[in-house]
């Protein structure tokens, strides 16, 4: 008897409840809908909610406490000496019991007591499921029946349903917000732990990044230096290159699309740009690493420049290409949002198309374009895959785009790939980097959204 069966049964009951609630409301007034306070469907929904919601809440609570209650009972039944084990050991034993009851592989040999405990566990779980089944279904039926019986013609079913819907929507958005807050807080706490080991000033202003720490005391190895400046410098360098590529091309293609292109061309070109936006970044990544970077290196050798095989230039250019559709579709939107009346006014004065674009449309759309570019910047800063593949790992502090640099996101990846201790400075550094990255992109996004919103208000 699975939980899913129960849920399906409950849903079935809810539709029955809907049907009977609706029917009762209609029979109350002899089919004259006008005499009811709300439409019959609202009475149906109200009954269905009464039928479903308490039962579902019960189900959720039951499932979240079942495990611990049952485990507690199993522990009670275990021999004294096992009960007195330290908590971690006890956990291991219990884990084995659980695995045993599900027929999985167990870490220690199976003895008599373990087998008994597992059987006990299985039977308790079975009883619990049974009970849940009975209790949930009876709650659903009783509450549904009660709701259906108490329907009166003056009952304000519509208002109640509205309230319930309101509550659902509210709880969904709260859930989303809490998840975000949870992530931010966890990053924050881990960062605080990092800063207890490494001073904030060293992290923020240190010029050297070399996170390798000795894992065991007897290992030879460096103690790790955590100056994040080279990473942020690398990130900025690549972002800058990406923007130099993406902003002019994206903006100009947006202008062409919005102002010059024929309808025919637009319907053809827009989807193509969207495809560009839909290419997974990993594809851009190996394109950058396997095609663009060698191309730049060979080009460099031809004209007598040394270009390292993993260069900021290659990563930046490919990232720029990736961002073009982003810039162009955002700019396209703001350019299209400039009212036609502005264009008419300018054309009516004898301005040409490019004069109109330069003097009227771009100035009017500028705040929105700036906002769009800032959003694109924050996207470039957070981009990972391309730089992992094409930018390199060495934390050079350089402004030369022909050298290899590394970025914040790349370092986060390398810090967390492979085996590690969860509380070493090396691992925790990833959280600190993530925190700073998060603050930067958050600030950029907020500024950008503020600008975009302000611009919208102008024309509303």
């Amino acid at each position, binding site marked *: 008897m699975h939980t899913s069966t129960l849920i399906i049964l409950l849903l079935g009951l809810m539709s029955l409840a809907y049907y009977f609630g609706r029917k009762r409301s209609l029979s109350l007034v002899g089919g004259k809908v006008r005499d009811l306070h709300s439409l019959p469907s609202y009475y149906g929904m109200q009954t269905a909610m009464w039928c479903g919601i308490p039962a579902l809440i019960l189900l959720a609570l039951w499932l979240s406490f079942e495990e611990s209650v049952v485990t507690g009972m199993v522990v009670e039944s275990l021999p004294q000496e096992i009960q007195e084990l330290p908590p971690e050991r006890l956990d291991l034993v219990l884990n084995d019991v659980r695995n045993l009851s599900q027929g999985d592989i167990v870490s220690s040999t199976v003895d008599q007591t373990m087998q008994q405990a597992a059987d006990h566990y299985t039977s308790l779980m079975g009883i619990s499921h049974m009970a849940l089944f009975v209790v949930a279904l009876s709650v659903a039926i009783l509450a549904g029946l009660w709701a259906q019986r108490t329907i009166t013609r003056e009952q304000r079913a519509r208002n109640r349903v509205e309230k319930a819907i309101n509550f659902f929507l509210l709880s969904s958005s709260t859930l989303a917000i809490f998840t975000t807050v949870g992530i931010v807080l966890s990053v924050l706490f881990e960062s605080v732990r990092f800063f207890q080991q490494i001073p904030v000033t060293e992290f923020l202003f240190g010029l050297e990044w070399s996170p390798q720490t000795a894992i065991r005391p007897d290992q030879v190895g460096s103690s790790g230096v955590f100056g994040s400046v080279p990473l942020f410098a690398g990130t900025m360098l690549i972002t800058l290159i990406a923007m130099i590529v993406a902003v002019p091309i994206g903006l100009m293609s947006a202008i062409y699309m919005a102002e010059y292109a024929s*309808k025919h061309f637009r319907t053809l070109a827009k989807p193509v740009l969207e495809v560009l936006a839909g290419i997974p970044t990993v594809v851009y990544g190996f394109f950058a690493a396997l095609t663009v970077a060698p191309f730049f290196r060979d080009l460099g050798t031809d004209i007598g420049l040394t270009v390292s095989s993993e260069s900021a230039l290659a990563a930046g250019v490919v990232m720029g290409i990736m961002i073009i559709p982003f810039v162009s579709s955002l700019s396209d939107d703001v350019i299209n949002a400039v*009212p036609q009346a502005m264009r008419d*006014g*300018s054309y*009516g*004065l*004898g*301005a040409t198309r490019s004069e109109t674009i330069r003097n009227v449309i771009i100035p*009017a759309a500028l705040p929105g374009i700036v906002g769009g570019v800032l959003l694109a910047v924050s996207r470039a800063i957070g981009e990972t895959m391309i730089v992992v593949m094409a930018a390199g790992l060495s934390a050079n502090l350089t402004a030369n785009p022909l050298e290899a640099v590394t970025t914040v996101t790349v370092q986060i990846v390398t810090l967390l790939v492979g085996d590690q201790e969860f509380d070493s400075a090396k691992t925790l550094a990833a959280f600190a980097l993530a925190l700073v990255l998060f603050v930067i992109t958050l600030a950029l996004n907020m500024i950008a959204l503020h600008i975009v919103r302000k611009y919208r208000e102008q024309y509303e």
Partner: protein
Amino acid sequence: MNETSAATPGLAEETEAAAGTVQSTDDTVGEIYVDDPRMTCRNVDVYYGEKQAIFDVSLDIGKNQVISMIGPSGCGKSTFLRCLNRMNDTIDGCRVTGQIKMDEQDIYDGGLDVVPLRASVGMVFQKPNPFPKSIYDNIAYGPKIHGLSDNKEHLDSIVETSLQRAGLWEEAKDRLDQPGTGLSGGQQQRLCIARAIAVSPEVILMDEPCSALDPIATAKIEELIDELRERFTIAIVTHSMQQAARVSQRTAYFHLGKLIEVGETDQIFTSPRHKLTEDYITGRFG
């Protein structure tokens, strides 16, 4: 078939009839010619894609006159007006045939550049549409793109005279650097008129310039139109019969894309010859 009415101007007079008796919509009733035309339109048809919006309209627009165009909504007044400075070019799929001349120059001639044409045929739109720039820059925009001013002083004086002619100088002179969008609706419309006259056009087209304004602002604009008549030729589209009667010398009545009747404003409003015109101005229709 309108060829005949265009070719025989006396036709309408010959069949001089009592008010509201003409019923056929084949020919335009009344005098389409004037002695001193600034623009002449002959057999103009306009199509939006497959759909024809203007049918065979011939009309003269006299120098230093105000001609008003009236008619029920959707009858093609705006479309016809927009032919006169080729604003229809900016609409995808819009096609204009026939002949429109301005001072003997065919404005739909393939070699003609629309930039000087639009500079000499200005336009004021239904909804005030100042650019999101300062008041000064709104006015200076046209003169700048046409290179009308040699230096800053000259530009300043163009801005000042345009604002004065548009009757906005007193209200705006202390806030020239503030955005034009911050003015009231009526002030914005006068700003748009000032913007149009700053490039010294010969003809000004106005498409329902007062429909978004209150009676006081409307009165100001009407006064302004009357003054502007001395220097400019004006064609105005309006839904207000009173406005047409107050500001214009000639009136043209459009119906379903056809020019039904045209004549002296007094005559149109006191003794319309066409049945449709009479119905419209007496409020039985439209």
